[in-house]
């Protein structure tokens, strides 16, 4: 599913979080690309199944690209997954900052999502 570009409210840091609302394990990798650069920098990679919180923050200006990759898995083929990637500033979710990834894993129990958005 294509996601719309999020709209920044101001220059405050952007908080991100990944919320998994189904019985699936998720691995994720986040990147940022500055407006005047072609290089993707890894922001973080992690998994939803450990004890580490799946949230953090970063700074970005308009024109910065943000990308996430999700690797989703379950032992149940064709099971329905519900995942949200949320971007907010000062406690308020950005316009187009709630990016929902809902779908079904394939016959082997896995799915993958890759999204690139540009902050406006």
């Amino acid at each position, binding site marked *: 599913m294509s996601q719309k570009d999020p709209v920044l409210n101001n220059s405050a840091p952007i908080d991100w979080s990944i919320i998994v609302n*189904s019985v699936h394990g998720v691995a994720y990798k986040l990147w940022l690309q500055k407006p005047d650069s072609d290089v993707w920098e890894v922001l973080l990679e992690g998994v939803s*199944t450990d004890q580490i919180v799946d949230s953090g923050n970063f700074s970005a200006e308009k024109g910065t690209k943000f990308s996430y990759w999700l690797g989703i898995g379950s032992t149940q083929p064709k099971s329905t997954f519900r995942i949200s990637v949320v971007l907010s500033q000062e406690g308020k979710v950005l316009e187009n900052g709630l990016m929902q990834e809902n779908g079904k894993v394939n016959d082997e129990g896995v799915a*993958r999502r890759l999204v690139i958005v540009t902050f406006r």
Partner: protein
Amino acid sequence: MKTKITIVLVLFSGIIFFVKAQENNIGEATEDIIQNTYSVPTIPALEVVALDPSNISRPATAKEFVASIYNGIDANGKIKQGLGFEVKPNYIFNEPVTLQEYQNDRFRYILENTQLSIATLATSGDSTSTDLSWGIRLVLFDKTDPMQDSVFTNKVTNAFLKCAPIGPGESDEEKELKCLAEPVKEYKEEFIQENWNASWLMLAYAGGIRLSGSELTQGEIIGHKIWLAGGLRMAHWGQLGCQAQWSRSLKEESNIYFSELGISSRVTVKLGKPTINYFAEATFKPLLNKDEFDDQPEVNTDASFAWSSGFEFKVARGIWATTGLGRDAERIVGNNNIQLLSGFRLGISDKQRLK
């Protein structure tokens, strides 16, 4: 002579099945070794109304569910025939369960594994009437389920990380999906090898009503069934399975309700490979309403004990061939001989496919 020939044929078939079983992937076999009839039905409503399971729809949202119900009733308010739904209540009521809750909160675990089913079918011999059935299935606990083991899920997701692309521009979806599938398969097989005989407990209920003229207000109950089944680990080599089943059902041929209770137990012993088992089963199923058959000498009201024993061989994913000996508790007088068993039974590897 005929019996001897049959025995030879059955044993020969068993050997063929055994050889074929060994050719199968051992890892695949472990997936559904957690099988047998000592479970509860995957779709309880179909135990009362024999609808083809391929006709079952599975709405995943409240909107889809309401649309399914709406489409199940025609313009005259009559219920349509040949419909089947299977739903998870937490999906309908938008009550998602997370993996952490699934692993740590028993109530949320049961909620996630609860399935409701509804089915309709034309009444046998009267196409204007409809049999409507409903059912519920609950998994109280199941230690054979890898997803409730945090060590398993953590191993899988950490292995997923190596599938992520170096950068967003270097992604190859097909390659990544293949990479993601590998740890799921590998760790699942490993988990089931270790936990094939782990303990579990399930409960199910189904009921049915005959709607004269397919009118919702013109109903006659055709039966109720309740199942309680569980498995208990026996060291690393076996499992004790138990099932209690109560039913009150209308028999078409006699138009009489039979009330039966069945209490079964089964020992399954893994014979080295996960593709061959030895089993021994015993079932006690007394007829509860004996008095109602006093004037029917053809009904054997005392037959209440059944047994069987033999071998089962995996012949394909989810399918086991069974061969052995047994005797059923026949309700018709004169049918109480020891019989040869041979046939197939399905595994229950899809028991939680609705997740």
